[in-house]
């Protein structure tokens, strides 16, 4: 993988980002920089622009102005750039009329994974969908779809993970799996940027918290320094 640090160790760089919808700026001159290996939680009110930010980073939305870079590549047109990213959004990106295996196999092929079959089967096993792997995704419950989406976004072992409320709909065991998986990815040095509304469970192993407010990052702090940011601490406190 091409995720070698260039001169610096920066993995995600967002520079003066602006995104408008109908003249209303959702993201308004936003800056953020994340080092390789960071696990940063993105918090903020409903409709503040978390999803918009993550989708811009994933290359799915074009900003009005500003630059972004992932690793040392700033163009989402390059396949190598896209290979580095794993994105989990509000939609499952799964084909309703295919089963779990077929869905993941399709993605494995698109990412040109070798040993696709083994990887897919392990991936399904890991999110505990073995029993329903031959069922069409259309008949999955919400949590089952979310599990499969998680598996899909992790399938190609991306260097940078962009997760938009990944815990949505997961039951106890699913959430625990995701906790553990995130911790292990964090230890492996992957960079993780994760939007969540109730980040309590994540604070114990996350490295940073970013607070999106009024179109910009109002606070960006390592987790251990949160007490030094009273506003952020208060925001996180009650939302736990």
């Amino acid at each position: 993988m091409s995720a070698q640090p260039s001169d610096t160790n920066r993995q995600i760089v967002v520079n003066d980002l602006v995104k408008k919808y109908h003249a209303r700026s959702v993201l308004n001159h936003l800056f953020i920089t994340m080092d390789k290996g960071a696990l940063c939680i993105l918090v903020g009110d409903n409709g503040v622009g978390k999803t918009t930010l993550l989708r811009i980073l994933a290359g799915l939305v074009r900003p009005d102005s500003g630059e972004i870079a992932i690793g040392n590549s700033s163009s989402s047109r390059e396949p190598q750039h896209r290979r580095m990213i794993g994105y989990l959004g509000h939609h499952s990106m799964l084909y309703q009329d295919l089963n779990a295996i077929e869905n993941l196999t399709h993605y494995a092929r698109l990412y040109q994974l070798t040993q696709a079959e083994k990887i897919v089967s392990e991936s399904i096993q890991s999110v505990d969908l073995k029993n329903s792997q031959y069922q069409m995704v259309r008949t999955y419950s919400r949590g089952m779809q979310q599990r499969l989406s998680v598996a899909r976004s992790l399938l190609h072992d991306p260097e940078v993970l962009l997760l938009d409320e990944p815990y949505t709909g997961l039951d106890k065991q699913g959430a625990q799996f995701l906790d553990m998986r995130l911790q292990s990815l964090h230890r492996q040095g992957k960079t993780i940027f994760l939007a969540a509304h109730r980040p309590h469970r994540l604070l114990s192993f996350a490295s940073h918290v970013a607070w999106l407010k009024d179109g910009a990052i109002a606070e960006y702090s390592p987790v251990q320094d949160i007490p030094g940011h009273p506003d952020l601490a208060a925001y996180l406190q009650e939302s736990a």
Partner: protein
Amino acid sequence: MNPFRDYLSAVWNILRKDLQVEWRGRQGVPVMLVFSLLVVFLFNFALQLSPDLQAGLAAGLLWVSLAFASTLGLNRSVSLEQENKAMDGMLMAPVDRSAIYFGKVLSNFSFTFLVGLVLLPVFSLFYQQNMFKPMLVLVMVLGLGAYTSLGTLLAALSIQTRTRDVLLPVLLYPLALPILIAAVESSRSILAGQPIADYQSWMTFLLAGNILFTAAGLMFFETILEE
């Protein structure tokens, strides 16, 4: 790895996925087939065409029914990617956008062509003339190739809109008119047993249409899909 092989395998992966979905019971081909036959019957009824006249119309009706049916297929192929935003997943994969375009064109083409192949013997029966001529099949390949490459482009365009589910025919039919005219004219000549020279220019026209629309697809597909 060989980049060209990679490219081909990406195209094939997208085509294969569409075939798989179809196989899993999306029923696209049967619906298209029934629909194309329905169009034929409906027209014969509603327009009250006299039998001798109808024979001359066979080529026109063949293409009209194919054009209508393949719009269904195109819509289907698009809505498949739109449910759950599966298209986003494909866009984020390290796959050239033009490979996505080719994959979708190929899948749309194969479904429509299949319908066309079934229609030929049916038409032969109804209009008492053998329509299973190699040249006619060639015209079908060229005509449907141009039609689906334009159609895939416009389908990608129309899924971005709020009017998504109904806009495609409105965009596609008028723009595809030259293709349909050329296809009808060459089919008519072939059915009338005319020598190739008589309709060669139409065939060249169809070939040019294929090249033109595929080029347009390659050029604009990326632009269309970026949000």
